[in-house]
């Protein structure tokens, strides 16, 4: 019993242990150059970080300038719209508004009509589509008949 216990204990100790990797020795041809490159890289990175700080400062300045520009434009708008416009006559704009209002009303109607026409065409069921067309044909025929009768009546008169 004791022998078994010791064996299992030994195995248990062996499993988690990793085998030590062999040490590699790499010959560096130009060690001074490698060291120089490493130090220069570090120096460049520090300069990079300094540049970031400078960039942040520039952006803060830019925000300040944008705010100033916005205030300038606001003040200009106030001067032009509220003060200068006050000194000039407003002028008559009624004819322009009348012209502009008419097409605005007409356009949506046309669009609505187009939508109404397009809607049945897009319907996937084709059997329903012929149903309104005969009605239209019937109407057309009736209208044609009416016109013929009216023409005949004119001839009679």
């Amino acid at each position, binding site marked *: 019993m004791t022998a078994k216990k010791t064996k299992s204990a030994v195995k248990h100790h062996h499993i988690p242990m990793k085998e030590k990797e062999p040490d590699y020795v790499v010959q560096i041809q*130009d060690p001074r150059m*490698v060291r120089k490159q490493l130090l220069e890289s570090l120096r460049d990175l520090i300069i990079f970080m300094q540049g970031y700080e400078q960039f942040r400062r520039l952006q803060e300045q830019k925000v300040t300038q944008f705010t100033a520009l916005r205030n300038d*434009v606001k003040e200009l708008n106030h*001067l032009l719209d509220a003060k200068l416009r006050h000194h000039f006559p407003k002028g008559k704009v009624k004819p322009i508004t009348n012209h502009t209002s008419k097409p605005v009303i007409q356009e949506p109607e046309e669009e609505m009509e187009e939508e109404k026409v397009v809607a049945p065409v897009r319907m996937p069921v084709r059997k329903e589509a012929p149903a309104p067309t005969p009605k239209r044909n019937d109407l057309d025929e009736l209208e044609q008949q009416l016109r013929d009768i009216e023409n005949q009546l004119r001839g009679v008169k």
Partner: protein
Amino acid sequence: MEQMPVFVKIDDYNSVLELMRAIRRKMDEAKETLGKINELKNEEDHQIEMWQSALVEIEKKIEFMNQSLNEPEQI
């Protein structure tokens, strides 16, 4: 259609002139501010270019060190 000359009556002409001067001053200020913004933008662009070149240089150096460690026989 023949265009007719239009005359506008201005009650307080001097104040209008003063107002125009104020508008021009404000316009100059706005232009100056915009110029400063443009300068700052150029500085930012310059900074970004410097970053780009710095990164390229660092990449070259890292590549050299990598080559020294992985393929020393090629150096």
